[in-house]
């Protein structure tokens, strides 16, 4: 036991634990943490100081400070892993500042660090950050990619299943997507930004409203994200909502055929993408 003794004073376990968490999770200085209203509501500064033993080389503040620093680093790293593009956009100092604000507002209440970022997009929207809607949507995209990575593996429909569908049954076919799949519409070019961070050869987009349509999909444990045109997005959206293939094609053609896009070109393009989705294993089942 430590040679530097202080007289024993009984301390209720719950009071001690509430005090320690309030100090460890406070992002200010040691002095601010020990003297915060939350901490002193549990234990006065003097009583807390009496309870913490210094070592030969570290003061009371130093010793609790080890836990405080590790808490900050752990939470920062957790968000940095979840949101590498947001980190890239903001830069380390601003990202760290946002980390502190976020975890002060939304401390982790999950048994897993994987859940710590779930409220980050909505938190970003509540801030006064410039471009906060872009940042929030970028964070939503990154969360969506993580979710697909962790989704249960469900086998896609096989080539044999597809070959077995009679030609006249395709029109009324209804599709179910695999679990490791999600579809997104963003008002900002966040997918373009994400791709630019991921692949340094891509150009970074302007942070101005410009729609991005994306589907995220995992096959054989490789997670991919694909840009979609508006009509492709609409077709895929209708299909995963349970619209028959024939009705979905019809709806897309009605909306997207105009003077700039003739019907044959549109049909060829969306037919090609539909076949690509089948081949990529986007669908788990076809009901005819």
């Amino acid at each position, binding site marked *: *036991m*430590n*040679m530097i*003794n*202080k*007289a*024993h*004073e*009984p*301390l*209720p*376990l*719950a009071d*001690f*634990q*509430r005090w*320690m*968490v309030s100090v*460890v*999770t406070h992002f200010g200085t040691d002095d601010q943490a020990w003297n915060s209203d939350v901490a002193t509501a549990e234990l006065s500064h003097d009583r807390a100081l*009496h*309870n*913490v*033993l210094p*070592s*030969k*080389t*570290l003061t009371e503040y*130093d*010793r*609790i400070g*080890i*836990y405080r620093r*590790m*808490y900050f680093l*752990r*939470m920062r790293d*957790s968000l940095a892993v979840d949101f590498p593009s947001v980190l890239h956009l903001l830069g380390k100092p601003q990202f760290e500042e946002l980390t502190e604000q976020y975890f002060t507002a939304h*401390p*982790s*209440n*999950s*048994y*897993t*660090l*994987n859940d710590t970022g779930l409220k980050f997009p909505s938190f970003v929207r509540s801030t006064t950050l410039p471009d906060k809607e872009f940042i929030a949507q970028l964070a939503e995209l990154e969360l969506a990619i993580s979710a697909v*990575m*962790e*989704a*249960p*593996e469900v086998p896609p429909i096989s080539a044999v299943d597809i070959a077995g569908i009679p030609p006249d049954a395709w029109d009324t076919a209804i599709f179910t997507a695999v679990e490791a799949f999600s579809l997104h519409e963003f008002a900002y070019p966040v997918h373009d930004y994400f791709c630019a961070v991921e692949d340094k050869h891509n150009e970074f987009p302007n942070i101005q409203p410009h729609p991005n349509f994306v589907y995220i999909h995992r096959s054989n*444990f490789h997670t991919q994200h694909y840009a979609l045109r508006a009509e492709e997005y609409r077709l895929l959206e209708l299909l995963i909502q349970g619209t028959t293939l024939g009705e979905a094609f019809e709806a897309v053609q009605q909306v997207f055929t105009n003077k700039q896009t003739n019907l044959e070109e549109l049909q060829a393009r969306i037919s090609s993408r539909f076949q690509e989705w089948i081949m990529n294993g986007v669908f788990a089942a076809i009901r005819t």
Partner: protein
Amino acid sequence: MLPNRWNLPDLGFGVGLRSVHYDYILENFPPVDWFEVISENYLSQGGYSFYALEKIRERYPIVTHGVSLSIGSTDPLNFTYLERLKRLADLMDTPWVSDHICWTGVNGRNTHDLLPILYTEETLGHIVKRIRTIQDFLGRRVVLENVSTYVEFAASTMPEWEFIARMAEDADCGLLLDVNNVFVSAFNHNFDAKEFIDAIPADRICQYHLAGHTHKGTHIIDTHSDHVVEGVWELYRYAYSRSGGRATLLEWDEDIPSFEVVHAEALKARAYRDNAHAEGAGSGSAIVSTQKSEQQLLHAFANEYD
């Protein structure tokens, strides 16, 4: 030599399973005796991690090791977490379920750290009751690990080793003796590491942990970021001479090198075991002689950095 009191298996020399090594393991199936997995990483049972674990489970024994049980917290037990843990333990057919003698948060707030216990009668009674509930719920032996700590409290009424020994007896649980954590805390709090080990009931030890740490001069941090230092190996040999064969595991969590390097580090434990055998495990003379060298080692650290 003493078997553990439940005859839980000595699994040999294992390695903590980390995601950076999945592909190597699945391609090479190296001759590792067993793997320990961080429970929380697999509770969702989705994604590549769980796929890899299921494949590895086909060839190796798996033990689940958690970081979120928060056995010492005054918050109610989280039965959603425990249900998922039970499902994972059943799937892996883990011989025991391990976690830490610590708490991770309170009032629903999780720091995701292994926070230090206040060693009091109140804490002891609280933890013992919770361990018994959890063992009944899981239907498996709970094995709890001593953690590295960086602070002590005046309100504590007993040393850590007395607390652990009483906890294990009263709750009828197993112990995971992390000799690196003993070493780290002994330096940080200036106690004799062997006094700690001598106080631990050897027949309740089901597993050993070994790991590297980071010496900061004024204190040591349990980083699992390097090779095991000589003083920890000596402490392992000493502990082993008291307990006999127990599953032994090497943890490496930061700056993780290739699997071959991690595995080679784990296999060093075999040499220390053989050395303990040669000296006659459990003999008083071996204990006395190594205790002296260990004390010298710890004092050397203390003198260097004071």
